[in-house]
């Protein structure tokens, strides 16, 4: 590829994100793309002889069926995602924004592979779309995570293959460049990949860890303008919404912080379910902003706070931290029945802005772990003296 040599005065976009969106850089990536296509005219199948497996993705919080550990050798795992641009409702008041999504859901679906596998994604941008889209996999190596090789216009599709060389949970997101990157991500275009070690998850001592259920929670922040009447405005056109939300985004104060794209998306009828004794893996991603997951009444038994499975998990955590632009994973075995709130323990963001999910857990109560020794009632007249006697 002679592109770099041909444009010696241009800084590499890898060190100059600021210039990334400039028109000449679009031409630059188009040039790379053209060069690659020209240099590699043959089909992908011809250059890599490995077994292939086609996986159908499912909408979060659910995760497609997968092996937790595998004895099989590396494979090429084929996924297809279609960009869906559609208005989405983000709160109970019906506030609507023009959503950009991978496969129609916010977050996009979780893709699970094993370390050493190849992810082969077909990204489809239907002709009905209004904008160019792309995908940057934090788990992938090179070309801006694939962002530089996957720019697809409406009516185009692209196939990108990358090798999963690092185990962990990783964000992916749309990255069309410049302000369009945060705008597309904050319109819904982010998701996560989980690359499992081939021999499964392990604790610090090497003991195998197993989960009975996995849930994927994708957190989003939205910045919605209010009208003169103080109410959130609704938008259906990105061309109308983007300039206004961008102005608010620059102030960094979100109007909504939500899981699964909407206030209350994981509560009530959509509450997450588990049973006492079951172990649940909770994968939490935030493509843009920091978050502090906390399970009220429970813990993180094993937490990969930075989400990377070759670092030993921390044990017995109360609250963990998801850095903006990353995903983390927490393993927890439920020990008591009831309703658990899983939230961002910035309580303002949880209660006022929406970042709350519920777990509905059925099973048998354990009095040893907790017991209401004396129910609430009037303070006995000699209560204080009794307390002193103890």
């Amino acid at each position, binding site marked *: 590829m002679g592109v770099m040599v041909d444009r010696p005065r241009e800084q590499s976009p890898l060190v100059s994100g600021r210039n990334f969106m400039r028109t000449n850089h679009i031409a630059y990536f188009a040039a790379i793309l053209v060069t690659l296509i020209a240099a590699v005219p043959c089909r992908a199948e011809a250059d890599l002889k490995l077994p292939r497996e086609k996986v159908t993705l499912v909408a979060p919080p659910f995760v497609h069926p997968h092996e937790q550990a595998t004895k099989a050798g590396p494979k090429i795992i084929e996924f297809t995602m279609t960009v869906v641009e559609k208005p989405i409702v983000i709160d109970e008041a019906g506030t609507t924004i023009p959503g950009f999504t991978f496969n129609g859901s916010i977050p996009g679906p979780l893709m699970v592979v094993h370390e050493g596998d190849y992810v082969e994604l077909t990204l489809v941008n239907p002709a009905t779309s209004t904008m160019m889209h792309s995908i940057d996999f934090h788990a992938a190596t090179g070309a801006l995570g694939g962002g530089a090789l996957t720019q697809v216009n409406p009516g185009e599709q692209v196939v990108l293959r990358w090798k999963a060389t690092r185990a962990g949970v990783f964000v992916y997101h749309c990255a069309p460049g410049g302000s369009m990157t945060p705008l597309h991500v904050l319109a819904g275009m982010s998701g996560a990949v989980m690359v499992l070690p081939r021999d499964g998850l392990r604790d610090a001592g090497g003991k195998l860890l197993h989960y009975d259920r996995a849930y994927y929670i994708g957190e989003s922040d939205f910045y919605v303008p209010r009208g003169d009447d103080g109410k959130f405005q609704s938008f259906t056109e990105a061309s109308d919404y983007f300039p206004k939300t961008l102005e608010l985004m620059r102030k960094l104060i979100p109007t909504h912080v939500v899981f699964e794209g909407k206030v209350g998306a994981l509560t009530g009828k959509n509450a997450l379910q588990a049973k006492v004794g079951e172990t649940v893996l909770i994968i939490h991603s935030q493509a843009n902003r920091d978050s502090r997951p906390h399970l009220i009444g429970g813990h993180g038994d094993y937490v990969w706070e930075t989400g990377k499975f070759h670092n030993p998990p921390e044990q017995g955590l109360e609250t963990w931290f998801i850095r903006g632009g990353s995903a983390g994973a927490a393993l927890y075995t439920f020990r008591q029945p009831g*309703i658990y709130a899983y939230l961002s323990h910035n309580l303002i963001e949880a209660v006022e802005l929406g970042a709350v999910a519920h777990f509905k857990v059925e099973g048998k109560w354990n009095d040893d772990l907790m017991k209401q020794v004396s129910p609430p009632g009037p303070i006995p007249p000699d209560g204080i003296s009794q307390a002193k006697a103890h």
Partner: protein
Amino acid sequence: MLTLKLKRFTKTGVFTFSLVVASTSLVASSSAQLQTVEAIDIVPHAFAYRMAGDFSQAGRPVDAPLVAVTRTSVLHIMKQQVTAAEYDRCVAEARCMARSPPEGFAPNLPAIQVSWRDATAYATWLSSKTGETWRLPTDEEWVFAAGSRFHDDALSVAASRDPSVRWLARYEKESEQEALDQRPRPPGAFGANEYGLLDLSGNVWEWTNTCFIRQSLDTKGKPAGASTANCGVRVVEGEHRTYVTDFVRDARGTGCAVGKPPSNLGFRLVREGNGFATMASVFRRLMPNN
């Protein structure tokens, strides 16, 4: 208006016979205009009342007792919720606190984002304007007036030492309710009940004067032993019954795991009768709690 209603409580077998009379009061406003308070008289009849509060038997949480109540006096209650325009007259006279934006401030909409304290201040102002005694209804009066619009919150699950049983049952029940559009709508949008009262259990919940209580029950389900009343928290009625701190104007915060919040807080008032609508004119007996 005069209507005659025959209603049967299927669960309890109590037959009720009620007579409804509409009447009006005139309020002199600050601008010397006359404002009409449209109220409805509900004539006395027996009804089943699910008490409000937290109840326990032998330390286990249970459904509140169901009480057969026989009222012997007329209940004189506003036909519709107090509107923004009505409330704002009180604000204009500096007797009520101004409500804070952002929503539902068109004059013809119910006055929402009012606390119990705001509603009480309004009642005091209205009383001074009319020379009558207006106040928030008790929860029992509200349930009486709501008739078929009252939502019984009994869970009908067996008492259990396991605190998660009722918790999960309540969560299931609340999850089944349809999500309402929270935007306030003009009076009448949610229709009238059998007495002609508008918008009960719509998307505006109503304050009552009843304090939150905690009460233990004996084996027969009768209140026994000491109870605690917390009058900093009042019973709020609507699509479901809930308990809200008296200074809260917007209870919509999603909460953690403590149940569904009311969409909007508003109110309607009752007028004391001609000296005979006292508590002594109400008779109660405990009913089988099923």
